[in-house]
C-alpha cells in the first residue's frame, strides 16, 4: 500500500495532498494528474505533541511531525520516534492511523531511519 502524490500532466509539478488545479502552472482545470507513490524516506522538518486528540484516539499524547520526503514533497504524519530531533532521517510506513465510525484511515507513520 502506498500514499499517493499527484503529478500535473501538463507541467510535471507534484502535489500532496490532492488538489483540483496545479499550483505551478494553473493550467490544469480537469483534474489531470497522474497518481504516483510517494517515497518513504525523508527528514523531519518539525514536530509537536498533540495533548488533546479526538475521542477515538485512545492516547493522551499524539506525536505529529512534518517530514520532507526525498523528492521534496512535505507530508504530515504520526511519529513513532522515542526522542524526535529536528532534521533527523526518518523512514515512513503506511499504517492505520485512525479507526472511527467511518472505518480505517491510512497514513504515513514515521520511524527513525
Amino acid at each position: 500500500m502506498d500514499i499517493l502524490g499527484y503529478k500535473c500532466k501538463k507541467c510535471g509539478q507534484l502535489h500532496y495532498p490532492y488538489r483540483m488545479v496545479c499550483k505551478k502552472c494553473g493550467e490544469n482545470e480537469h483534474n489531470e494528474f497522474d497518481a504516483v507513490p510517494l517515497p518513504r524516506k525523508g527528514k523531519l522538518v518539525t514536530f509537536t505533541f498533540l495533548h488533546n486528540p479526538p475521542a477515538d484516539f485512545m492516547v493522551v499524547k499524539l506525536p505529529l511531525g512534518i517530514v520532507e520526503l526525498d523528492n521534496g514533497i512535505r507530508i504530515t504524519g504520526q511519529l513513532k520516534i522515542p526522542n524526535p530531533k529536528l532534521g533527523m532521517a526518518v523512514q515512513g510506513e503506511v499504517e492505520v492511523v485512525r479507526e472511527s465510525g467511518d472505518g480505517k484511515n491510512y497514513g504515513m507513520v514515521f520511524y527513525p531511519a
Partner: protein
Amino acid sequence: MILASKEVADKIKRPKIRLAGVGQATDTHCVQERENPTDLLAVRRAAEQSMKMAGIKPSDVNVAELHDAFTILEIVESEEVGFFKKGEGHKALERGDTKLTGKIPVNTSGGLKGKGHPVGATGIGQAHEIVTQLRGEAKKRQVKDAKIGFTCNFGGFGNNVVCLTFVRED
C-alpha cells in the same frame, strides 16, 4: 458597532474612532507546504497593508487585539505584525511588554482564550474592544492615553487574515 460617514459621526457627541486601515491576505491551508512552518505570512502582509493605509508603524500602536485561538498564536502574531522581532515574542511577554501597563498591551479583552471565540463574531468583538479602549471607556482594563489601536483576526491557521487599524480623532 456602528459605522458612519464622517459627516454623520460629527453630529454624535461621543469620541470618534476612525477606521484608518484595512489589510487582508491569504496563505495556503496546507501548513506543511509553508516554507517555514513557524511563519504566519498572511498575518505579516495583512498587518503591513493595514498599517500602511493608516500611515502608522507597529511601534505607534497603543493597544492591540490578536487572534489567540491557541496560546502560541498571540506570541507568533505579536512578532509577525511587527511589535517584536521574530523569535522574541515570548521574551516580550515574560518581560510584561504586552500586559495592561506594558509597552504594547495585547488582548485587554482577555483575548479569545479568556473572553471566548464565537468565530464569525470574533472580529467584531476585537474591534469593539479597541473602540472601547480608544474612547477611554474600558474602566479597570483601560490602557492609558490609547490613541491608536490594532486588530488581527484570522481563519483557519492563518489562511485568511484581516487586520484593522483604528485611530481616535480628537
